[in-house]
């Protein structure tokens, strides 16, 4: 029917609607009455005496494993001693003070700070931690003495444990405790309980969502003042959900080698900052990622003192992951680009028509030198590249012209981030004419091309960008996104996330035959040129050395290696700051990596899991292993992979870190953006071992406690 215009009809419906509203309201009123009047007393009583407080059960964090399932980061349960200050026996402050003093006496520590903390916690109605990380051996007698003290209990607290200390520290990252802004309800996506572990850098941070679990709750009934009562029926606790395990593409053997060799590379036997990165060029998987100086992430788990934290932030910046966050002048490794530019224009293929090298080259009013003062003599493409003759490349640069070289370099997008799955990757710098114009206010001088052609001047690249670029050159010309993590699995093994197919980012504008020619040039460099130190028996290795001039001191050493050159399975880049010549300092690192990866027979996976002192499982949940001491010997598995002049030492027992070990050197003050010189540089390397006590003089004995290895005497 049409809309009931008739008021009577309307009124009828109005009554119906009013009745509907009324009925619902009557229901609500009734319920209100029932709750407040009829049962008011009971509820008031409940309110006074029956409030439920959820106490969080921390969730075990997922393990981080290398590609063969070996543990890189795990959880262990540390035992903390806690006092429930809201226990009914602690109505008065004096009672709390007495109890805490007794505990302090048994532990052998100063009572005052603990008493203060306990009194502060009284208002928070949370148990106060009196001692952390108790040694399970000492617990027996300790508890016998302290047993009568009411409200004292052992709290299992999850701690993050890195069984290999500083190996891969930058890659793995470290964890910290959740703060005010991050605490939230467990069912929400982002809620943590107070004090839960959150990844702050590296893989721990990047894959936080997968690694973290969801905390659970036990339900405690308390009265209005927060004190425990027992009047509500027992509510079963809600279990915590464990985090997922993460499998990385990293190979622990290669990683250990990279870290160890980087620590001792360079002049004065080590201690130079640097970076090593190794990729599988077809998949982008990161096989090793090392940065020096480093640190022991276990220190973060145990709590840093202020001076330790300050030391980490200054000097050589050990927290910096130099493979992705530091930019370097590529030096002679950039000659790969210059060569490709020349091939691209076509005239370089024949390789002829170049003036011989006598050690220097004149351009305008300036003289540019070759690294070999006596010169190389007659040069063509083959020996020009293999011997890295600067004069040869000056000539190429001139023929390309500044615009030509910059345009080609620009088309390679070397300064773009690779998108590796680690946080805070830096961008490089490949200048353009516009860039020069803006900086100088005028057109740049043509002479700049000479520097750029040999990789000096306003060029800055991250090691990962170099590795990704070279990977593309030696494969099919596609730049692939590097990836650190492969998959995440539930503790039972079910896969919850996979990295999937390798991701292609862009194709280099380099035709097949140019790339093939370049592969041959790389092989020639190692076979007959400056890359001799990278030779590996039985493997065809290709590479390019680089020595980047450093106005503040020694040259930086670089090397890019590819093996096997006919079917590349590894591309690795090593940078040693102020290390000297790439051929002698950086190349041996790559050599060892290639040898281990391609030549050494593989141990079966089961064997390595057994031998590895760290084990492939870690303690999760309160029933598991408690407190495996940080002094556990590490990876004997890797021992066989090291060069024979390098031996592994046991981690020294945990000691105070000498702040000066981090080399905030007053003396050598190259206060520029690059690292300052490090006095006693070996001590910085020693920090990786989890503690350096001796402040011996630079060089020599200070290396005794070096990271994971030292030179055999």
């Amino acid at each position, binding site marked *: 029917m049409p*809309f009931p215009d008739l008021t009577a009809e309307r009124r009828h419906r109005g009554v119906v*609607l009013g009745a509907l*509203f009324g009925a*619902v309201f009557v229901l609500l009123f009734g319920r209100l009455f029932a709750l*407040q009047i009829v049962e*008011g007393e009971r509820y008031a009583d409940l309110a006074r005496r029956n409030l439920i407080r959820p106490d969080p059960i921390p969730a075990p964090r997922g393990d981080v494993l290398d590609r063969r399932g070996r543990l890189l980061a795990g959880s262990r349960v540390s035992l903390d001693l806690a006092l429930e200050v809201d226990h009914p026996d602690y109505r008065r402050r004096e009672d709390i003070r007495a109890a805490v003093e007794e505990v302090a006496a048994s532990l052998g520590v100063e009572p005052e700070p603990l008493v203060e903390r306990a009194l502060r916690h009284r208002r928070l109605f949370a148990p106060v931690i009196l001692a952390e990380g108790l040694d399970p051996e000492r617990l027996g007698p300790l508890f016998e003495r302290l047993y009568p003290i009411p409200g004292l209990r052992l709290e299992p607290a999850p701690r993050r444990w890195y069984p290999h200390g500083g190996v891969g520290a930058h890659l793995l990252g470290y964890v910290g405790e959740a703060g005010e802004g991050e605490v939230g309800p467990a069912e929400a996506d982002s809620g943590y309980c107070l004090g839960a572990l959150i990844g702050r850098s590296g893989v721990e941070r990047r894959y936080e969502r997968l690694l973290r679990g969801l905390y659970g709750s036990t339900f405690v009934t308390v009265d*209005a003042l927060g004190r425990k009562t027992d009047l509500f029926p027992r509510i079963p606790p809600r279990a915590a959900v464990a985090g997922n395990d993460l499998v990385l593409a990293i190979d622990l053997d290669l990683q250990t080698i990279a870290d160890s060799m980087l620590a001792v590379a360079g002049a004065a036997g080590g201690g130079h900052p640097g970076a090593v990165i190794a990729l599988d060029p077809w998949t982008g998987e990161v096989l090793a990622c090392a940065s020096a100086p480093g640190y022991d992430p276990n220190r973060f788990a145990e709590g840093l003192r202020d001076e330790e934290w300050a030391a980490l932030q200054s000097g050589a910046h050990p927290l910096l992951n130099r493979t992705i966050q530091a930019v370097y002048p590529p030096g002679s490794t950039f000659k790969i680009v210059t060569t490709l530019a020349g091939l691209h224009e076509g005239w370089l293929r024949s390789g002829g028509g170049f003036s011989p090298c006598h050690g220097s080259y004149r351009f305008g009013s300036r003289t540019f030198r070759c690294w070999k003062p006596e010169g190389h003599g007659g040069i063509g493409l083959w020996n020009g590249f293999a011997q890295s003759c600067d004069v040869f490349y000056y000539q190429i640069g001139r023929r390309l012209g500044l615009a030509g070289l910059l345009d080609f370099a620009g088309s390679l997008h070397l300064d773009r981030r690779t998108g590796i799955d680690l946080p805070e990757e830096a961008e490089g710098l490949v200048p353009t004419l516009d860039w020069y114009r803006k900086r100088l206010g005028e057109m740049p001088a043509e002479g700049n091309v000479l520097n750029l052609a040999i990789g000096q001047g306003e060029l800055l690249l991250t090691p990962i960008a170099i590795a990704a670029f070279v990977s593309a050159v030696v494969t099919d010309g596609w730049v692939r996104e590097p990836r650190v993590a492969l998959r995440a699995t539930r503790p039972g093994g079910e896969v919850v996330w996979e990295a999937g197919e390798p991701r292609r980012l862009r194709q280099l504008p380099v035709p097949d035959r140019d790339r093939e020619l370049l592969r041959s040039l790389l092989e020639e460099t190692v076979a007959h040129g400056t890359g001799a130190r990278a030779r590996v028996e039985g493997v065809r290795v290709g590479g390019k050395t680089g020595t980047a001039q450093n106005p503040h001191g020694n040259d930086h050493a670089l090397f890019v290696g590819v093996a096997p050159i006919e079917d590349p399975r590894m591309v690795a880049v090593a940078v040693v700051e102020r290390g000297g010549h790439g051929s002698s300092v950086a190349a041996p690192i790559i050599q060892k990596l290639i040898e281990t990866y391609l030549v050494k027979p593989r141990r079966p996976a089961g064997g390595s899991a057994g031998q590895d002192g760290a084990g492939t499982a870690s303690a999760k949940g309160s029933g598991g292993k408690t407190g495996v001491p940080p002094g556990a010997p590490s990876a004997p598995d890797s021992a066989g992979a090291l060069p024979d002049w390098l031996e592994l030492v046991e981690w020294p027992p945990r000691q105070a870190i000498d702040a000066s070990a981090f080399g905030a050197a007053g003396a050598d003050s190259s206060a520029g953006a690059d690292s300052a010189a490090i006095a006693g540089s070996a001590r910085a390397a020693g920090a990786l071992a989890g503690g350096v006590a001796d402040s011996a003089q630079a060089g020599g004995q200070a290396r005794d406690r070096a990271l994971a290895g030292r030179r055999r005497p």
Partner: protein
Amino acid sequence: MTELRFSWNGRIWLREPLLTLPVALLLLIGGAMVCSATMLCENGTWSLALRHGFAMVVGLLAAVAFAGLPMRTLGVIAMPSYGLSLVLLVGVLIFGEVQYGARRWVDLGPLQLQPSEPAKIAFVLCLAAYLGSKRHDLRRPRALLGALGLILLPFVLVLKEPDLGTALAFPAVGVVMLIWAGVPWLTLAFLASPFLTVGLAILPLLVTWQEAAPHFVWRLLWIPIVAIGVMVMRNRSIAWVPVLAFAVVQMGVALETPRIWASLEGYQRSRVVAFLNPEYDPAGAGYQVIQSKIAIGSGSATGNGFGRGSQKALAFLPRRHTDFIFSVVGEEWGFLGAAGVLALFGVWLLRAVSLAVRVRSSFASLVAVGAAALIFYHVAVNVAMTLGLAPVTGLPLPFMSFGGSFLVVALGAVGLVLGVAARRNEY
């Protein structure tokens, strides 16, 4: 003579005390409760109270705006604003920020837009225009289907966010408006029967408190009900086609419901179960309801005093300044306060309905009823939730809950009703 221009209609605000005073009082009480609930919690500052005040001002502006618009203008903007709100709802599904597992908001820099809220007003206007138009004879299926379509579109879109509580507002308000528009009772029964079937299909899943094997009997109960329905319809000489359609729909619903139940998010399911038996999960979903009941109940006859609630029961009630604001009233002002608040709502609602009976224009009448139904739905569900009579849904209490979007919408609804009151003699 019909007025076509916007007019302030200042007098109407004074001439309709039953529409203005309750709202004013509720706003004041709400403001006080929000202050009490927020200032005494950890982030206690004035900032939340100020934001509430700001939202009130914006809402009052909206009320004035709606009150001043002529009926014809409302009729003109009805369809476009409905279309726009559908677009925004789709937009939020695509671009929305995920928060607590749901996409409800779109972040526009300084503003956050929650399209499901203004969509309610647009919906009321559009449905009112549709039903009030003489072109649509609601006895004919086509017109009825059109109305159903208007209801279902926003319902489905909001349901996908997922936001069950808000989504149900559309059918709830829509049904009331259909009743008002004169849809025959039998047709309504026909329309309502699938919900009955849903209830019967779900009930066994809930009654056993576990999402395991339900009682066999309950699962098949829908069959005799459908059979009865078929017989009744044949008795009334309804053609076979609609009868069969009815049977098929019922069967589909009965079979689909367990599947949809299984596909609900865990927390949604546990909320429904917790509603029926809060003690089942006193730690999770049941926790809030238990705490709310304790808080309200402990208020007894006269309450514990303004501002005192947080020291006792309310300290453990989360979201007490938003969804559970009524618990604050109950705890601090007791039965007198809580019943008083309900009475204020009741007065407003009854006045709005009586107005709707009297106005000339069918469109205006439907607008008034729709606005009233919108307020009623929220009040009923929210208060029932705090009392443990409905599952926890996250619906705010009009005029009182902290939360700008809905406050503005609720005051907009008030403005609509006032506008209808001012123009009761227009067509």
